[in-house]
């Protein structure tokens, strides 16, 4: 894959950008003013007066009036509409792309392919995702060309007339299968693109101390964020060579750097206007169509808008990682956990996106909020030829919670201990150390569990 080169490019251009920045600095800078800094040492669990107060959202009125302007509610004179042609094949080499028929259609203003993009790769941690696939397709939702036309319908029809010749390749969909590296999603790279390992205490000793060993495999499915507002952006390249993007992007600063990189231009020529977002949930934390729209606007001299269809939300935006989680836990006969071994396999789909962050957080939290002296947690993130997984509320925390709490229930059932009691016995308390050695403060797990049990009548339920 040519991506290596591009990654190297990035380092160069970022340094360049920093140097340009340096040139603009003043030779000397006034002493910054020093304010007395008071350290606020709030008591643990101290509530601010805001808790319990009734508050209204400052933007609530406009929402209710239908006056909030989301991207699709913004229009510019002469604006064009873009659509992307999706590969529809999950792994293939692109032999040729013929856009001539689309270009000849009345109403079509411009067609763009991956080869026209200065640095055709992006991503918040690894730059492994093409803006428009040029040499190879990594999953079926990959865009292979973009069209700007006077109406959405014409743009869509033009996409249908673009002819792409593929040489199909063997895909790999199962993350465990992908670990064998027999089929590589991004050759020559391994499918295992990120790993994490946390070790604490002596695992063997821990298991030896146990009266019972519990083993289980748990898995969760891929989940789409389904924000009510689909991803949307408008790009306007002005005659001065600057581009303005109105985007539903949640992280505009990060996006700006990524766009500058793909367009290979100084960051100060890129302006992003972040508007009110109609639901993000982690799915709008990276750029998607923005560089392509910018280039279409450059080609046409007109503003270009693109809004994902609901279908594109599912096939071409990020999702929540499916996890395969193996848990082995040693417990004494009275329910104290002595050791736990965890192995997580994350299905990252075709690109990294926010996988690294998800992997780290999932691994750290994988043992659960329990005092476990002897622990080994290993996590692997895998490429597969599927829609990429990225950030979604909790970055992997809900998946591991499903696994360790499922196992806690199994342990309680087998040992005939009340499930609540089992948790109370093992749960973190003030000053417990997390798997990575962090000493925890303001720990209210036990109080919360007790309160919750009391509120919904856990005991009366006959549990």
């Amino acid at each position, binding site marked *: 894959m040519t991506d290596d080169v591009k990654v190297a490019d990035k380092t160069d251009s970022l340094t360049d950008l920093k140097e340009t920045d340096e040139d603009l600095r003043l030779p000397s800078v006034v002493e910054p003013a020093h304010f007395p800094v008071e350290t606020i040492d709030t008591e643990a669990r101290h509530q601010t007066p805001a808790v319990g107060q009734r508050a209204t*959202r400052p933007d609530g*009125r*406009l929402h*209710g*009036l239908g006056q*909030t302007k989301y991207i699709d509610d913004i229009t510019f004179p002469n604006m064009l509409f873009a659509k992307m042609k999706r590969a529809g094949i999950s792994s293939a080499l692109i032999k040729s792309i013929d856009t001539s028929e689309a270009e000849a259609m009345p109403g079509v203003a411009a067609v763009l392919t991956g080869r026209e993009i200065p640095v055709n790769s992006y991503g918040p941690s690894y730059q492994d995702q093409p803006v428009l696939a040029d040499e190879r397709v990594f999953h079926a939702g990959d865009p292979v060309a973009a069209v700007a036309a006077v109406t959405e319908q014409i743009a869509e029809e033009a996409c249908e007339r673009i002819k792409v010749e593929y040489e199909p390749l063997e895909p790999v969909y199962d993350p465990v299968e992908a670990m064998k590296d027999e089929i590589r999603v991004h050759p020559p790279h391994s499918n295992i693109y990120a790993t994490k390992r946390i070790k604490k205490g002596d695992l063997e000793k821990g298991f030896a101390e146990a009266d019972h060993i519990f083993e289980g495999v748990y898995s969760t499915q891929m989940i789409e*964020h389904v924000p*009510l*507002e689909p991803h949307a952006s408008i790009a306007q390249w002005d005659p001065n060579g600057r581009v303005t993007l109105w985007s539903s992007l949640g992280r505009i600063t990060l996006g700006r750097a990524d766009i500058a990189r793909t367009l290979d231009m100084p960051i100060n020529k890129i302006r992003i206007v972040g508007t009110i977002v109609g639901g993000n949930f982690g799915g709008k934390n990276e750029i998607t169509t923005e560089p392509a729209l910018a280039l279409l606007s450059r080609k046409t001299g007109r503003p270009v808008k693109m809004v994902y269809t*609901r279908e594109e939300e599912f096939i071409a935006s990020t999702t929540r990682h499916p996890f395969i989680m193996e848990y082995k836990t040693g417990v004494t006969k009275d329910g104290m956990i002595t050791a736990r071994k965890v192995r997580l396999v994350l299905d990252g789909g075709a690109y990294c996106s926010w996988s690294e962050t998800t992997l780290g957080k999932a691994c750290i939290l994988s043992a659960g909020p329990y005092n476990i002296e002897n622990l080994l947690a290993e996590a692997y993130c895998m490429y597969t030829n599927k829609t990429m997984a990225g950030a979604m509320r909790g970055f992997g925390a809900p998946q591991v919670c499903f696994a360790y709490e499922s196992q806690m229930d199994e342990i309680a059932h087998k040992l005939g201990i009340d499930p609540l009691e089992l948790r109370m016995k093992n749960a973190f308390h003030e000053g417990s150390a997390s798997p990575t050695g962090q000493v925890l403060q303001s720990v209210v797990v036990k109080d919360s569990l007790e309160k919750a049990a009391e509120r919904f009548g856990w005991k009366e339920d006959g549990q």
Partner: protein
Amino acid sequence: MTDVTLTINGEERSASVPPETSLLRLLRDEFYLTGSKLGCDVGDCGACTVIVDGLPVNACLMLAGQVDGRDVVTIEGLATLEDLHPIQKAFEEFASLQCGFCGPGVIIAAKGLLDRNPDPTKEEIKDALSGNLCRCTGYTKMIEAVQDAARILRGEKEAA
């Protein structure tokens, strides 16, 4: 091209649009009434809900040509310059919306209900909103707001 003349929020409007144009596109693209949102374009989410001849409908599923001569109320038709509609007021007060994208559709669906049934039960409210998806809120506060607005509209409670 299809010629349509219809009443929108009490005003007669006309347009000439391609025959495949949906009512939603007609409202948004021809009349710049962007309060009705496009969330799915296939009748699943309810973000496009408007009232046609007194009944809430998904504007994405209706053709512009079908509303010729009919009466349409959109979210823009609820408030006056002086005052919000009681449902809008209640939604604001109860903080019933977060990102807000589903809001116009939900409020219109609620209005469609209260116009026909001024004293709905909680179940009836849930039923009336069942065609409106919201990914942010969990619906609880919307239901509370609709109950509150109903009380105000029935004159049992002073508007705040």
